[in-house]
């Protein structure tokens, strides 16, 4: 398809394990994500979700197969990619404002212009008044907002998010989900959102991809035909939502159990 901005063709990634052997993190991944599409990726822990994102971001080259972004093979970090890491990566020695201004500064904007941009994004993620704070003075939820603003200030056309809200409490998480949808709507960006929370995946995404237990490959891709704009909290109670949930959970449960057994046998 013409507007597939992300395309994985039989991508495999192997790592050297500490014992000296070879560990296959993801195996024969084939998937596409279109522009303006919000895709959620779920799978058992340790299956290779973060690895998939690092392939798309160009931080790790695939061991086999092809990764294409905007139609061309990934070499180095492709233009227009934003990536929110699983562990937040705000710079502890910079204030909130300067953390958010980092992207535009790296891309050659003047300090004043970068700061002006950063200021509007700090406000958009709800941190007005905290511009001068250092990360250690913020709560975990506020740090996630800084990371979000830091990523969005570059106006990515591809947004990769790795369990961005998993460390937050339930209320803050719902708030952040709503805010993310509000900020994303109308941008045309393709989003790949990794989560272990199936409810979150369905509430946010147009499509949910289920990955198998390690080594990960794609087990199924489930469309989520819920209309937008969505109110995340109300959505959870609707019957449509519960039906979709049941269908995907059926598929995911097998993998989670497989992963659990695998871990138990490895530990034994």
């Amino acid at each position, binding site marked *: 398809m013409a507007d597939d901005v992300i395309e994985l063709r039989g991508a495999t990634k192997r790592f050297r394990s500490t014992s000296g052997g070879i560990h296959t993190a993801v195996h024969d991944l084939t998937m596409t994500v279109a522009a303006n599409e919000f895709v959620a990726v779920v799978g058992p822990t340790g299956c290779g979700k973060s690895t998939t994102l690092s392939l798309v971001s160009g931080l790790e080259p695939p061991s086999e197969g092809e990764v294409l972004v905007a139609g061309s093979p990934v070499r180095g970090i492709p233009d227009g*990619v934003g990536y929110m*890491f699983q562990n937040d990566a705000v710079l502890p020695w910079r204030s909130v404002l300067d953390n958010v201004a980092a992207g535009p500064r790296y891309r050659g904007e003047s300090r004043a212009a970068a700061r002006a941009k950063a200021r509007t994004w700090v406000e958009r993620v709800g941190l007005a008044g905290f511009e001068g704070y250092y990360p250690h003075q913020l709560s975990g939820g506020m740090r996630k907002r800084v990371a979000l603003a*830091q990523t969005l200030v570059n106006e990515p056309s591809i947004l990769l998010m790795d369990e961005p809200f998993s460390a937050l409490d339930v209320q803050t998480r719902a708030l952040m989900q709503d805010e993310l949808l509000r900020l994303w709507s109308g941008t045309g960006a393709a989003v790949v959102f990794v989560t272990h929370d199936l409810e979150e995946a369905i509430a946010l995404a147009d499509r949910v991809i289920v990955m198998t237990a390690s080594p990960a490959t794609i087990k199924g891709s489930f469309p989520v035909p819920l209309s937008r704009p969505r109110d995340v909290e109300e959505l959870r109670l609707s019957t449509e939502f519960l039906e979709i949930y049941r269908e995907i959970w059926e598929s995911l449960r097998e993998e989670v159990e497989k992963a659990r057994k695998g871990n138990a046998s490895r530990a034994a």
Partner: protein
Amino acid sequence: MPSVWNSGLSGELSPATAKAALGKPDRQALTSAATAHRRRRIRVWAIRVALVVAWLGSWEAAATYWIDPFYYSKPSAVWSKLVDWFTVGTSQGSIWEQISVTMQEAVGGFVLGAVAGVVLGILLGRSRLLSDICAPFIKAANAIPRIVLASLFVIWFGLEMSSKIATAFVLVFFAVFFNAFQGAREVDRNLVNNARILGASQAQVLWTIVVPSATSWILASLHSAFGFALIGAVVGEFTGADKGLGLLINHAQGTFDAAGIYAGMIVITVIALLAEWLLTALEGRLLKWRPPAAGAEAQI
């Protein structure tokens, strides 16, 4: 395809309540915390002064009644020596001139050594190839008893200041180098990756991620490094010089003047403490982003 992340926003934000004005109970808590803090400080200082008085008093008494002050000197003799130096002058001329010479040597060696140590440390810390090549040489250089080089430098550079600066330089360089190296090695990969995704070039990663990460390591080494610079300068002057505090102490040793040795020690100690204070102030400025150490702030 360009995306437009700034359109379609409702613009409605969750209000952030930054520091509100302090209420009355808060102000009371602040004042009582301040008083408690002040009382504690007074007590700590009173005990410190008492300890110094007891120590000097017993030394003075011992030297007056039991032990031989010719070998051990005594506080009053050291004090009059210091007064003598600062009012009349030393055997080598004005005391200020000696201090100035030693300071120039120490500061010169410190600055050159620190700059070289930081630059090389970060360079090797970031380049696997370079550090693999240089590792055995650096280990060997570090194993040399470097203080002995002072004699060599006197032969090379003569009795002038440059030989002392060279001695201070080698001592400072290694102290700073290893910390800068370690600091550059231990940079969080996550931060580097994040910067690269945000658009940073190699040079920008170095300046905005590696250098700030290594700064706390480097600053920690600078404290001991200035001490090394002073040692380098003084030992250099011992080895051969025509001016400086080291020469003064050496001269006092030659004339069995124990009070002179103590007095020289005191002058050097005061210089070291002043430098330490300056470095701590610098560190406070550069690392103001760090959370305060536990217990460093008065608890409310």
